[in-house]
C-alpha cells in the first residue's frame, strides 16, 4: 500500500503531462490533426498566405468547440424550463382555486373584492337590519340562521337570518314573486334535499332570479341558465366563512321578513 501509493503520484504526473503537453501544444502542433473536421477548411484558407497565424486559428477552433455544448445546454435548459413550466401550468389550471373559478362566472359580482369589511363575518345583531345590497350577500346578521337544509320557502324570509346562513356556506336562491311556476319548479329541483342551499321568493328584485353566497351575487333571467349550477358548484360550502361543518340545521324554519330571536329557533 505504502509502496504503491507513492508510485501512483509518480506515474500520474507523467500521464497528466503527456495529456497537457498536447493541450499546450495544440496551437502549434494541434493545428494539423486537431483540425480533423472543422479546422481543415480553415487551414486551407488560412494556410495560403497566412502561415504564421496558424496559432490563432486553432484558438478559434477551440472556441467553436465550446459553442456546441453551450448550444446543447441552452437547448436542454429551454426544453427543461418548457416542460417544468407546462407541468406547473397544467397543475395550476387543473386545480384552480374556487375563488378564481368564481371570478370566471359571467356576470357574478364579487363583494369580497369591493368591500372587505362587509364580508368579515361574525357580526350578530338583533332586530331589523338595513342592507344596502338586496338581496343581501354578507354583513351583520341575526344570531339565528335560516334553516338551509335544502329548505324550499314559499314566502319571503328574513334577510337577517338568511345572511347568517350564507356565512355558514349556504347558497340562497331568490326569485321575483312573479316568476312562472315552471321556472320556480326548476329552481326547487336544484335545492330539494341538498343541504347548504335554500330557496325563497324575494320582493323587489330587479331580475327574475338572484343567487347569493357569502360575498357573491349573480342575477339571471332564466331558471335554465347554466350559470346557476356553476354558481352552486363553485360557491356552495366553499364560500363559507366557518368551513364545511358549520350547521344549516337548527335554524329558523318559519317564513316572514321580520327577524326572530334566537330563542325561537325551533318554532314554526
Amino acid at each position: 500500500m505504502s509502496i504503491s501509493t507513492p508510485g501512483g503520484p509518480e506515474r500520474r504526473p507523467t500521464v497528466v503531462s503527456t495529456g497537457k503537453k498536447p493541450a499546450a501544444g495544440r496551437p502549434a502542433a494541434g493545428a494539423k490533426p486537431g483540425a480533423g473536421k472543422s479546422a481543415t477548411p480553415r487551414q486551407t484558407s488560412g494556410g495560403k498566405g497566412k502561415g504564421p497565424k496558424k496559432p490563432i486559428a486553432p484558438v478559434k477552433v477551440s472556441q467553436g468547440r465550446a459553442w456546441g455544448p453551450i448550444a446543447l445546454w441552452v437547448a436542454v435548459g429551454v426544453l427543461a424550463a418548457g416542460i417544468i413550466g407546462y407541468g406547473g401550468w397544467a397543475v395550476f389550471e387543473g386545480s384552480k382555486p374556487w375563488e378564481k373559478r368564481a371570478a370566471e362566472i359571467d356576470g357574478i359580482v364579487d363583494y369580497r373584492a369591493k368591500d372587505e369589511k362587509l364580508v368579515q363575518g361574525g357580526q350578530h345583531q338583533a332586530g331589523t337590519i338595513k342592507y344596502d345590497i338586496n338581496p343581501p350577500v354578507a354583513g351583520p346578521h341575526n344570531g339565528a340562521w335560516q334553516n338551509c337544509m335544502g329548505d324550499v320557502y314559499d314566502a319571503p324570509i328574513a334577510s337577517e337570518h338568511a345572511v347568517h346562513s350564507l356565512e355558514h356556506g349556504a347558497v340562497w336562491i331568490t326569485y321575483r314573486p312573479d316568476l312562472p311556476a315552471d321556472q320556480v319548479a326548476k329552481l326547487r329541483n336544484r335545492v330539494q334535499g341538498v343541504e347548504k342551499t335554500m330557496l325563497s321568493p324575494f320582493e323587489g328584485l330587479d331580475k327574475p332570479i338572484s343567487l347569493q353566497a357569502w360575498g357573491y351575487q349573480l342575477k339571471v333571467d332564466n331558471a335554465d341558465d347554466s350559470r346557476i349550477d356553476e354558481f352552486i358548484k363553485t360557491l356552495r360550502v366553499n364560500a363559507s366563512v366557518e368551513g364545511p361543518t358549520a350547521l344549516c340545521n337548527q335554524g329558523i324554519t318559519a317564513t316572514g321578513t321580520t327577524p326572530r330571536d334566537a330563542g325561537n329557533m325551533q318554532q314554526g
Partner: protein
Amino acid sequence: MDAPSASEAGDGGRPARRFGLLAVASAVVVGLLLGYAGGLLTPTLTRPGDTSAEAGFARDMTTHHAQAVEMGLIAFQRGSDPEVRQIGGDIASGQQGEIGTMQTWLRSWGLDPTGSEPPMAWMPGGRAKVRNGLMPGMATPEQMAKLRAAQGRELDVLFLELMTDHHLGGIHMIQGILDAGSDEDVLRVAQTMKNTQQTDLINLQNALKRRGG
C-alpha cells in the same frame, strides 16, 4: 514526435466528451419527461377523481349525514325520554364528525364539496333511488316539519322511526361504496360507519319497543 500521440488523445477525447455530454443531456431530458409524466399520472392514479365513487359517496353521505344530525339534535334537545336524548346526541355528534372526515377527503383530493353529477350517480342504480332530491332513508320536508312540531312521546317515537329508516338507507349507501370503492381509507371509514349504524339500529329498535312505537 509527441504531437501525433497527443493528437490521437485529443481527437479520441473530445468526441467522447461530446458523446458523454449528449448522453447526459438526453438523460436529463428523458428523466424530466418521465418525471413529468409520472407527476401527471400519479394524482389521477392515487387520488379519487371528480366523478369517482369515493367523491360521490363523500358528497352524498355528507348530505345524508347532515339530515341525521338535524334529527339527532332535535331529539337531543327536545326528546322526553333520556335514552332518546342520549341516542340523538350520540348520532348527531358522531355523524357531524364523519362529515368533517368526508369533507377533508374532498379538499385533499382537490375537489369541490358540490359534484357535477346528480346525487347517487356514483352508485349502480343509485339515481333511480332518489326521490325529490332525497336519497334512500331521508325524511321528507313534511316528515321533518312533523318532527319539529312533535312533543313528548310522539317526538320520541317519530324520531326513533325516522332515524331507523335513515340508518337503513344510509347502510344501503355505505354498502354501495364498500362494493364500488377502492380507496383504503374510504373503505375503512365506511366500514366503521356501517358498524356504528348497525349497532345504532339495534338500540333504536329496542328503544322503540320500550316507548311503545
